[in-house]
């Protein structure tokens, strides 16, 4: 499009990056937090903080499932759906429930859940109404306040732009290795470029992997055409073939007692003596078409779908199974979604995922800052800012400073909102967006260095207040978490303290107003001097 390939790629890199950088920042930011989805959900429910992880988790599963089945048989023998979610290394609570009959007008049958402490099998107090980490997980690809389908198309398009920006970024970056070790401080937009290069190059394989696999998680919405062409009945037929376990039997009214659950579990344990069961689902309980589905954990392989077995609920025979011997193509596809979700990651790898995600946020943030800084530096002193430049600067401040602040507001609201508030979970989300709106309004009034410093201070205060508010409103605190080795809670409090420190550093690094003018005009002063000289 330009005179030569190199120029075209530079142009493309700049514009695909700039067009969607704020949406991408939101996606990367929420996605990075989602690596700790379970931990955030646990943090958000202080009612279950005292529950300890079991010592012999896998060994006690058979008895727990037996007890839960007995309870479900008593509570809801005729429900269309039972679900048992076993505790795992990240979530200590065992929760199970049944679908209540669907009322007319409801899209889905309401689910009645019970949460129990797996150590004692005693019910735990009902946790507060919160979305926890699930909010950031949904925000990551469903956004909020807009239709889910539109949101996902937008996210796909932004990710596609990101992928193009990454590839063109590598193309235009001739001295990729040399630049990795060069950082020129206090050089105006040159420093922003270096920061952009460092954050991009250091985690480049991660950025490319996470962007590509991210689009793959939504790929059947984006490109259903091969499946529609090859299969007569299209996507649904393909999914049924890929995962026969998901095929539901039609409900009937004919009562038939279910097989003893032990008989089902015995077959699992014969195949996998150390089976780690993650879920047990029952469909059409106590009828002629009852089904029992047993999900096994993935055992640290790079796949998202572990082995699953579908048992006939009446006879106890295996009707279908999946997830055991995937073909190469299926493994290729599934390993991509597994790499993206990072569910396989043990704590150390999970933190690496998180840090790479932070590097991705930094890459996007420095990218959109750089564009505005460059234009500012090139402007003549008497020139007033262009409309586009003002827009970019406003969006930069509103997004880069607004999102962390909104996140803090979400966590604070989780602790401070009254427990018995109606629709409490939605109020937490409202707090998130109100806080974001607050910073956005601030950005509308001005984008000078002092506005940035104010936003950084607000963020620092918000970050530090979270461990404090937590200490006053719950039984534990940052120190006690360390002493009792509750690493998930300790990690979240520590992360906020680190973020707070970083915002303080940021606010101190932002030069005072006069200083900026000096530096911004350095280039022009030099030119002037040269002309005069």
């Amino acid at each position: 499009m330009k005179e030569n390939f190199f120029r075209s790629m530079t142009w493309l890199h700049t514009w695909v990056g700039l067009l969607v950088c704020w949406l991408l920042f939101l996606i990367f930011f929420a996605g990075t937090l989602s690596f700790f989805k379970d931990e955030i959900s646990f943090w958000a429910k202080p009612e279950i903080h005292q529950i300890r992880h079991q010592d012999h988790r896998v060994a006690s599963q058979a008895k727990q499932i037996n007890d839960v089945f007995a309870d479900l048989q008593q509570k809801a023998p005729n429900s269309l759906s039972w679900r048992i979610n076993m505790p795992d290394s990240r979530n200590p609570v065992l929760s199970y429930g049944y679908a209540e009959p669907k009322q007319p007008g409801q899209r889905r049958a309401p689910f009645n859940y019970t949460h129990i402490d797996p150590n004692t099998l005693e019910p735990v107090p009902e946790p507060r109404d919160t979305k926890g980490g699930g909010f950031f997980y949904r925000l990551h690809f469903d956004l909020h306040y807009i239709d889910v389908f539109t949101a996902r198309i937008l996210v796909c398009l932004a990710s596609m732009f990101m992928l193009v920006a990454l590839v063109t970024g590598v193309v235009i970056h001739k001295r990729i290795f040399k630049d990795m070790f060069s950082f020129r401080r206090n050089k105006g937009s040159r420093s922003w470029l270096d920061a952009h290069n460092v954050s991009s190059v250091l985690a480049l394989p991660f950025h490319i992997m996470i962007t590509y696999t991210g689009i793959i998680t939504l790929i059947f919405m984006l490109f259903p055409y091969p499946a529609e062409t090859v299969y007569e009945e299209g996507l649904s037929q393909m999914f049924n073939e890929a995962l026969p376990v998901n095929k539901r039997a039609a409900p009937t009214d004919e009562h038939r007692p279910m097989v003893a659950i032990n008989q089902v579990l015995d077959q699992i344990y014969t195949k996998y003596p150390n089976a780690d069961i993650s879920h047990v689902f029952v469909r059409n309980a106590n009828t002629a078409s009852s089904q029992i589905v047993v999900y096994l954990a993935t055992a640290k392989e790079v796949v998202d779908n572990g082995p699953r077995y579908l048992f006939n609920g009446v006879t106890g025979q295996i009707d279908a199974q999946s997830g055991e011997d995937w073909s190469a193509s299926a493994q290729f596809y599934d390993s991509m979604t597994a790499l993206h979700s990072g569910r396989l990651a043990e704590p150390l790898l999970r933190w690496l995922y998180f840090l790479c995600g932070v590097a991705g946020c930094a890459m996007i943030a420095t990218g959109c800052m750089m564009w505005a800084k460059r234009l500012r530096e090139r402007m003549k002193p008497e020139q007033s800012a262009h409309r586009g430049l003002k827009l970019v600067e406003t969006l930069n401040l509103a997004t880069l400073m607004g999102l962390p602040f909104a996140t803090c507001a979400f966590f604070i609201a989780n602790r401070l909102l009254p427990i018995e508030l109606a629709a409490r979970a939605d109020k937490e989300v409202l707090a998130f967006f109100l806080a974001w709106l607050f910073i956005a309004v601030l950005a509308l009034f001005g984008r000078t260095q002092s506005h940035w410093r104010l936003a950084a201070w607000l963020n620092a205060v918000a970050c530090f207040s979270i461990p404090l508010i937590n200490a006053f409103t719950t039984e534990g605190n940052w120190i006690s978490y360390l002493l009792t080795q509750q690493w998930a809670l300790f990690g979240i409090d520590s992360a906020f303290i680190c973020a707070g420190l970083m915002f303080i550093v940021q606010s101190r690094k932002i030069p005072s107003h006069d200083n900026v003018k000096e530096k911004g005009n350095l280039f022009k002063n030099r030119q002037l001097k040269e002309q005069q000289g």
Partner: protein
Amino acid sequence: MHSQSLQAGQAKEPRGAKKRSQSLSYRVAVFFRFVAAILGGYVFTSVFISLLAVLLPLNKLDSVLLTTTLSVFFYCCVFIWVFAVKSLKVVWITILLTTSLQLFVLALIKGWL
């Protein structure tokens, strides 16, 4: 490198009325580039991977999963190619020709005609 080329782009800011009309045609050209990249690339990729899924000597499920997983790679290549080629006409003619040719072959194989 990066900064120089950007500077070159910025230096062409319109000043007079004559340049303004030039900048308008430039904007229209950029718009159609993006349409070619986003929509053209999408349609080309869809037809290409559908044809590939039919042609690959694999079982149904495998060929669908493989081609669908690779779709993003093809889409990305087309997207970048659209901006690498100098003439917008060449871009549109290539996309339309290759897409319709593939669609024709696919229709022949599937017996849609």
